[in-house]
């Protein structure tokens, strides 16, 4: 007998085909809208057509009179039950159904519950709302101006539209660094409002059973346990009587983290009607009312010596949060992990000032494929780096290299207080430059320029903090951001694993089993993975911010080790030796002095139920709660080459090279899938995804005809490379990966286009770099801003 072959049993490193695919490829997934409960009714939401208006009256009589209508909810109904407002995940309040004013276009005003969704929709149109229009504000700078209309007049002690002022870093030291600098480089950017837009919209089915007092809610949520806690607080129901089930989720990307009014309204409707109530959002509702992302103004400057060493950085951010501050983020940090910017560079001084502002736009600020604002942080960082290299007249790759934290400098404390712990930044950059043929491309570019062709190369290198996080620093609403895993090994040696995470396509059902296989030698196919049901899964904080592998994945390894420790005692008993004489190899314990004598993990499982040592508790189950000692710090180098057509402003991607170091890869196939998905969203941000507003507060981008997502036709091909630097504190050496490419990617595209325009005086074109923007920049030699309009005139 020997150890089992890890790849054969689907362990670490196996390109194991996905378990969940077996149902998805047959059309047998179980998404929210596929679930039908006996007696189920359907809810639709009436939304505000205006961005800012006082509600004079709402007449629901015609809706009530329509056949098939069971209930009409308005702000008044909600207020009578103290549910007109709900707390947000950022200690603000958000209207469930509007009572006093509407504060953005698309805000929830009333709900109809009917026998059929078509009837509910008809009845919504029969509701008459009398609005008194108020001047809307869609630009945060206007919101900050003196005399601006007060958006949140519902709040006490809210004299203006400022949500918070926050700062971090050493102002004095940074000021001194700038005073000593040879060169100071500046940049101003707007990272536009965007929307995660998973192909499945949000939805819920609330099922309140009066006879048992149990409330079961099926919900498109990435974090079912947080939702259970939130429902217990908002609806004042006992937590043991609340069961949140997150079924198969058709993509999340951060859109399905917050609590939305539709969820709350469907719950109240089910309690009032004592029947299941289903709410399925339509696409316009999804785009105009649920968790948008970004929408932030970034100003900053770098202080440098002539030789290119960076001495200090200043950043100033103004975030447009819309009408309610409902970001889902660690409570300690008002602007997420923005201050993780420049973590891969060795910079002694840094200072960040952040301001949050209310406007008449949908709330959100969700972490769209991103660990709490790191997307904005890394975009700013890499755009700043390119501008600084240009100002210094240095090669952009060389400028990065001389400022990188070196391999032997870890652990490294960033000036804003993060502790990076591992990486080979220079090596990743080298792999990328080699792959793209950097020197050759520079020559090619020069040649092309002589013939009037505009080629450009953009680099983006970054390390980002993934896997929040340790309990000293990270909590949401006071709940520490640990995660969990529970493993039950059955008598036949097969196992059931549950975690507190909730995948939305990341392949947890496949990879978690691979970790167990790696730790215990039980074949992955013998392990069933379940997530998403709060009545059965251990408490965890869910899946977002690339935290599943860093936190829940670590819990899976740790619970497997607990099982192995018990199995070792059983093995000693079966082998009739003392525990100290037992050795382990994958799948098997053996006698140190007689390697041929051993028992398999499966034989230990049988014994755990049938032949345990005296005094041992029967069974082979355990649970692990994992509080990570630090974040994980993957590194990435993305290089894009483009050609810009000077006649049209159209730019085409020539090559896209990605080098990712996410530590040990559990399932390389799935890791590569995550990277390609992220690169596509990066390309989408740079090229087409755009939600803006006109001066009246109308959302431009309220459907997929206006809000463009890339298709197979325009999406470029990807060239993937890897470097492996194991995470020093993660039990299996893994780091987060789901979001790296979406975080680091956008700057590579913009840097490439700006590089192609070098010499024209253009330093910045705000994303998306639509051809007309690029064309205008080429014609005028001026930067192009994408900020929304400032309104003039009366309401």
């Amino acid at each position, binding site marked *: 007998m020997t150890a089992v072959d890890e790849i054969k049993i689907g362990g670490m490193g196996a390109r194991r085909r996905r378990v969940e*695919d077996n149902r998805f490829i*047959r*059309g047998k997934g179980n998404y929210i809208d596929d679930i039908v409960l006996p007696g189920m009714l359907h809810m639709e939401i009436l939304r505000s057509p205006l961005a800012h208006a006082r509600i004079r009256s709402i007449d629901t009589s015609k809706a009530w009179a329509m056949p098939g209508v069971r209930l009409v909810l308005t702000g008044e109904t909600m207020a009578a039950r103290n549910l007109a407002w709900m707390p947000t995940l950022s200690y603000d309040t958000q209207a469930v159904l509007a009572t006093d004013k509407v504060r953005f276009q698309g805000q929830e005003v009333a709900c109809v519950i009917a026998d059929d969704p078509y009837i509910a929709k008809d009845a919504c149109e029969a509701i008459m709302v009398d609005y008194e229009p108020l001047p809307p504000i869609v630009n945060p700078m206007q919101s900050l101006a003196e005399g601006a209309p007060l958006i949140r007049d519902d709040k006490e002690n809210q004299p203006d539209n400022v949500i918070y002022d926050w700062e971090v870093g050493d102002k004095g030291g940074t000021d001194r660094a700038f005073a000593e600098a040879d060169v100071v480089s500046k940049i101003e950017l707007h990272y536009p409002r965007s929307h995660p837009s998973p192909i*499945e919209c949000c939805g819920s089915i609330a099922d309140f059973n009066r006879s048992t007092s149990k409330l079961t809610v099926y919900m498109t949520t990435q974090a079912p346990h947080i939702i259970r806690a939130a429902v217990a607080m908002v609806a004042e129901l006992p937590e043991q009587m609340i069961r949140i089930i997150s079924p198969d989720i058709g*993509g999340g990307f951060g859109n399905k983290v917050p609590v939305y009014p539709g969820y709350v309204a469907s719950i109240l409707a089910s309690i009032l009607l004592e029947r299941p109530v289903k709410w399925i959002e339509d696409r316009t509702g999804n785009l105009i009312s649920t968790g948008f992302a970004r929408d932030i103004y970034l100003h900053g400057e770098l202080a440098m010596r002539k030789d290119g060493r960076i001495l200090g950085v200043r950043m100033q951010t103004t975030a447009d949060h819309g009408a309610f501050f409902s970001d889902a983020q660690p409570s300690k940090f008002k602007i997420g992990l923005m201050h993780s910017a420049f973590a891969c560079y060795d910079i002694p001084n840094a200072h960040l000032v952040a301001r949050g502002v209310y406007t008449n736009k949908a709330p959100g600020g969700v972490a769209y494929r991103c660990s709490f604002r790191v997307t904005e942080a890394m975009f700013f960082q890499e755009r700043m780096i390119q501008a600084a290299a240009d100002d210094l007249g240095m090669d952009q790759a060389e400028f990065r290299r001389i400022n990188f934290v070196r391999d032997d400098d870890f652990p490294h404390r960033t000036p804003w207080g993060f502790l990076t712990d591992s990486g080979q930044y220079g090596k990743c950059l080298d792999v990328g430059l080699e792959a793209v043929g950097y020197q050759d491309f520079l020559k090619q570019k020069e040649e092309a320029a002589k013939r009037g062709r505009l080629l450009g190369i953009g680099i983006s290198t970054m390390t980002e903090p993934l896997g929040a996080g340790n309990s000293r620093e990270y909590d949401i609403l006071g709940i520490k951001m640990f995660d969990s895993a529970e493993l039950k090994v059955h008598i036949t040696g097969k196992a059931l694993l549950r975690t507190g995470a909730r995948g939305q396509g990341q392949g947890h059902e496949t990879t978690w089993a691979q970790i167990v296989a790696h730790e215990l030698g039980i074949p992955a196919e013998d392990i069933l993975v379940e997530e998403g049901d709060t009545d059965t899964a251990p408490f965890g904080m869910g899946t977002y911010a690339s935290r599943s592998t860093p936190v829940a994945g670590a819990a899976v390894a740790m619970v497997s080790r607990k099982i192995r420790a018990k199995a070792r005692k059983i093995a000693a008993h079966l082998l009739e030796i003392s525990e100290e004489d037992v050795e382990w190899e994958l799948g098997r314990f053996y006698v140190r002095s007689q390697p041929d004598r051993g028992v398999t993990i499966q034989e230990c499982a049988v014994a755990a139920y049938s032949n345990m040592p005296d005094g041992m508790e029967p069974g082979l189950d355990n649970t692990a709660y994992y509080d990570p000692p630090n974040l994980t710090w993957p590194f990435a180098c993305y290089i894009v080459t483009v050609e810009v057509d000077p006649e049209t402003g159209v730019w085409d991607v020539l090559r896209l090279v990605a080098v990712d170091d996410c530590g040990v890869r559990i399932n390389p196939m799935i890791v590569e*899938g995550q990277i*390609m998905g992220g690169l596509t969203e990066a390309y989408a941000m740079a090229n087409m995804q755009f939600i803006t507003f006109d001066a009246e507060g109308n959302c431009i981008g309220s459907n997929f005809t206006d809000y463009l997502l890339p298709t197979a036709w325009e*999406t470029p091909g990807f060239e993937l490379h890897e470097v492996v630097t194991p995470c020093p504190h993660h039990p299996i050496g893994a780091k987060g990966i789901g979001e790296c490419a979406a975080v680091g990617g956008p700057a590579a595209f913009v840097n490439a286009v700006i590089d192609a325009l070098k010499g024209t005086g253009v330093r910045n074109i705000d994303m998306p770099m639509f051809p007309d923007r690029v064309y205008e920049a080429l014609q005028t030699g001026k930067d192009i801003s994408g900020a929304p309009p400032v309104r003039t005139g009366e309401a």
Partner: protein
Amino acid sequence: MSNLYEVLPPELDDDVPVRKVTIRVNGENLSAVVEPRLLLAHLLRQGFKLTGTHTGCDTSNCGACTVLFDGQPVKSCTMFAVQADGHEVMTIEGLAGPSELHAIQEGFKEEHGLQCGFCTPGMMMTSKALLDENPNPTEDEIRWALSGNLCRCTGYQNIVKAVMWAATKLQDQ
């Protein structure tokens, strides 16, 4: 009647015109009485309980609801159920028989052509239409054929590979 009972709605509104439709779905004739405004996607999902056809956008952009209509790919949220009366529809549930997999289904799994799985049925139905017409497509032909189907997870590269995998397997058969 195929059941011993039929549950009728409590009050039939005589003002609402309804029409009986019969559609051959996955090789079987299925009938329903529908309002003319009912979308084919909704009849398939709610009426015929074929929930593999998904809806994701309401504006015929995303393609998650793609089915084959007389062999041609159509977005079933763009058609009224009454327009399908007397026609043939194939949904993802009809792509292969029980306990069988079509080469396209195998290809998507083999090449990791899906993640959340929501766009996948529509992607596969469009792929089927492509391969029926063009058994040996180039990468560009595949990308063009799939350009009416949106995927947010994969970045399409593995979907293209999945279709190529299926094309190879179908040609070897």
